[in-house]
């Protein structure tokens, strides 16, 4: 028995300094470590989920965009034909391989012209081309309403007539609010508001409904 005691003391001495709190600290730390590890796993899983979601969304965007673009491109060609009879216009993807980030380029070739660069078009042509693009978009994916603020200002009579045709077609699906100075544009309107300015205050003078049966 004494031997045992002596041995115990010797061994204890051999162990040297012992931190009596080490056991508890170790247990606490281990628990915490386990908890954090679980959390880490959770977070990683969530991240993976999110990544999947993003991926899905991207796919969806690609798909939706691809469809919309296809529709728009088709409509643009139609509309362009309408506004520039005999002309040729189309829209292209700058980077068809990356549908997520690709841009959209416009090519317009009015009849009898060979230019492709948009900056070389005349003012009226540019307006008309832009309108064509807009209308193409509108027709591909119609919105409930549109507001147009003096868009036809730069157009000549012929082109105005063409535009009005487009507008009339748009009107079938959407509400249009047009601000204009052109009498012909006013003529296609279902309602007309006159606006004046008196002493710096705008007043809607005639709220009259002018129904014009064509």
């Amino acid at each position, binding site marked *: 028995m004494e031997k045992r005691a002596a041995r115990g003391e010797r061994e204890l001495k051999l162990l040297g300094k012992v931190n009596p709190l080490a056991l508890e600290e170790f247990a606490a730390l281990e628990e915490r470590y386990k908890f954090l590890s679980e959390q880490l796993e959770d977070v990683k899983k969530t991240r993976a989920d999110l990544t999947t979601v993003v991926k899905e969304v991207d796919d969806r965007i690609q798909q939706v965009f691809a469809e919309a673009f296809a529709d728009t491109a088709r409509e643009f060609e139609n509309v362009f034909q309408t506004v520039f009879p005999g002309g040729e216009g189309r829209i292209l993807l700058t980077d068809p391989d990356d549908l997520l980030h690709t841009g959209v380029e416009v090519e317009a070739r009015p009849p009898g012209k060979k230019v492709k660069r948009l900056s070389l078009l005349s003012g009226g042509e540019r307006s008309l081309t832009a309108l064509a693009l807009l209308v193409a978009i509108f027709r591909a994916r119609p919105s409930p309403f549109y507001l147009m603020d003096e868009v036809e200002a730069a157009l000549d009579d012929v082109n105005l007539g063409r535009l009005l045709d487009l507008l009339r077609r748009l009107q079938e699906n959407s509400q249009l*609010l047009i601000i204009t100075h052109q009498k012909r544009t006013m003529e296609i309107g279902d309602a007309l508001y006159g606006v004046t300015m008196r002493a710096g205050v705008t007043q809607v003078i005639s709220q009259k409904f002018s129904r014009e049966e064509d």
Partner: protein
Amino acid sequence: MYLKSLTLKGFKSFASATTLRFEPGITCVVGPNGSGKSNVVDAIAWVLGEQGAKSLRGGKMEDVIFAGTTGRPALGRAEVTLTIDNSDGAIPIDYSEVSITRRMFRSGEGEYEINGDRCRLLDVQDLLSDAGIGREMHVLVGQGKLDSYLHARPEDRRAFIEEAAGVLKHRKRKEKALRKLEGMQGNLDRLSDLTGELRRQLKPLGRQAELARRAQAIQMDLREARLRLLADDLAGLRTNIAKDLADEEALKERRAVLADEHDRLAAQVAEVEAAHAADKPRLARLQETWYRLQAVAERLRSTAQLAAERRRYLSEEQDDRTGRDPEVLETEAQRIREQEIELREGIAEDSERLAAAVEAREETEAALAEAEQRIVGAVKAAAERREALATLRGRVDSLKSRTAAAAEELERASIALAEAKERAEAAAEALAEAEAENETAETDSEFDEALAEAKARTAAAKAELDRLQAAERDADREASQWAAREEALAVGLRRKDGAAALLARVADTDRDDAGLPSDDVLGSVAALLTVRPGYEAVLAAALGRLADAVAVTGPAAAAKAIRLLRDEDGGQAAFLVKHDPAGAQDRPAVPGGLLPVADTVTAPAELAATVRAVLAGMVVADDLDEARAIVETHPGLTAVTRSGDVLGAATAHGGSAKAQSYIEIQAAVDEARDGKIAAESLAAQLREQLEAARDAHAEAEAAAEQVRTAQRQAQAAQSVVARRLAELGAAARGAEAEVARLAQARDRAQTAREADTAGLAGLEAQLEELESLPAIEEPSTDERDVLARELDAARQNEMETRLSVRTAEERASALAGRADALARQAQSDAPRAPAAPPSPRSSPKPPPKRASSSPTPSKRPPSNATPSPPSRPAAKPRSPTCAPAPPPLPPNSSASPPPPTATRSPVPSSACASRPSKRRPAPSSASTSRPCSPSTAPTSSSRPAPRRSPPRPRRGGPSLPRPRSTGPSWRSAPPAANAN
């Protein structure tokens, strides 16, 4: 879905609430440029959540609020409400009509409402993006925006398509997910860091924990082992305790037993001690007895020895003489007897000589004693005398020094006295002087008078000064009042019309005006005329407009001036034109008693005629009634009342007091000026007087001050004198006191010296006397020494004599003994030869025989006595000392039937003498016996005393030489006996 209506309140140029109702289809908005058509589009963009102020054509968002016009104030907020028909459910909300409102305040706060519920911009955008209206607002095609579509980057164009396709909401979802991912990444990083850190910490901690676990196991093991060891120890210790307890019990019991025994023994000891104490006196007695017995035994032993010696001697002698003839012996004896006789005779002789020597010695002793007594007396007398002499000398010396000191003191005192007297005289003189001086200084009252006078003078000067000052102030005040009045009036005097302009022009001499030379204008009439006081109003009324006129040199000058005024738009002016004196003649005569107005005024010479002409026919009236009376009586005259009313035959004007005319004002100004000047001159005069008075006052004060200073000086001087006086008085008194004190001291010193001198003389005489006495000679010791020597010689002689006597005696006795012995021998030989010695001689013979045998009987008593004392009581110790003494006597007396002879007596006497002598030292050796003797003395002495008395007389005889050698007496006894 379509837009149903748009209501604008305070948005941009729509100041008042305006509602536009839309219909499905095309709605056109027309109007002139700048009428605010585009603001409708802006309003829709704004309400749908437009954030950029620029796209709304403004600098900042607050610009959308109505900024106000010249006619309308600015508004505090802008509000736009867009109502959308949602009957087709294009907007994912459960309403068939959705109204979106955006409101903005000048403070910059904005708010959104959907169907009247407050919400965020995000909600509005969410709502609309589902309907295909995104943030890009591609449905709003603004003015001049078309070009931007074409010039936009391909990516922006893509955005239009995307928006139209409704990709936006997907994008939003993606963005949200990405944002989440980003946030998550942060969390992830943090978590990774934490876990990494923890892992790093875990490792060493794990090692420590492992160590701790092992340590714990070991410790447990160790503890168990230790516990077991301790348990063993405990068991062992317990048994030990039990054993110890049992031991303790046993020991306790034993202790109790021992204690009992101890008690018992202690009791025994006490008993024994008590017995011991009781036995102690007996022991002491016994010891004493024992000592005594031993002494007796000793004595007996020595006696026995003596006897043995004697017997040996005797037997030797007998042996020697056995061979001799009795006759020879007889003859021998005879011879010896003769010798003895011879010796005895010598002894007698010697005894006589001894007696003589003793006598001589005694005589010498007496003489010596006497001589010594004498010497002692003489020495004492000499010593006394020396002492007395020394005392006297000391007294004389002290007295001498005292007298010398007294003389010195006297001298000092005399000197001091002289000095003190001098000082006293000086002090007295000084005092007298100072008193005289003080007498002269008594002039205080003069100063007082002078001071009072000076004060009075000062007061008078001051009063004068005050009066003058008041007067000056009054004068000044008056002057300033006048000046103020003049100034105020002068202000009123300034012209405010053409006259003023003209006068100003003339005053401005620098301007060389061609139109009006300054020579032409004489000045203001008011300034030129001097009115008699009290008639200002009269003159002003009489002159009318002319009172304010300008005087000119002639009609030409007047015309020039008027033209000038007209040209310069200078206003109207009246002119008094210098007149031809000829016109003075048609002046109507003024009846006596009436005062013409012209007399009340004094004009400069060049104007006098003109003034008279103007005032012609005008008289002064006291009041209107008088004026009326004058006019009625003299229709040619015009009366002017004192209050300024004018009453003429044709014209009249007047009424209540109007504004003062310049003339009046001028007069008032003049009067004010005069008053001012007078007041000023008076003030100046007064000022001069004041100066003088001030000087006088200052002088008076200076005089008073001088007097005061003088008085102060005098007082200071007086106080100095008084102080000095007091000092001197004190000094004089001190000096006198000192003189008295010193005189007294001197007297005292003198008397003391005289007394001392007298005492000294007496003492000196005494001393001299004493010294003159013949010195007592030292007592001569020669006589005494001679005597002492004689005494010594006598003593020696005596001693020698005594010795010789003794020697002779001894020889005689020895011879006698020899003779006896020879005789006895001869006798013993006689049976054979009957020639016996004489009977007397034979008779003593038996005793020696007995004496030789006597030791035996004498020995016997001690042997008997030794056993007897212990049995006897304590009262007996005395008796042994006496008892042995008697016993030897009876045997001696009984054993010597023949009458004791002188020769025989020494034996018992020596024995007897030795006994008491032996008894005497006993007490010193055995002190314990001593206390007993007195107690027993009464009982024992009563008996033994009679018995002892017989030996005493016997002892007295031979005790002659004894007194000298008492100490060795008992030792010398045996030799004495031996000699016998």
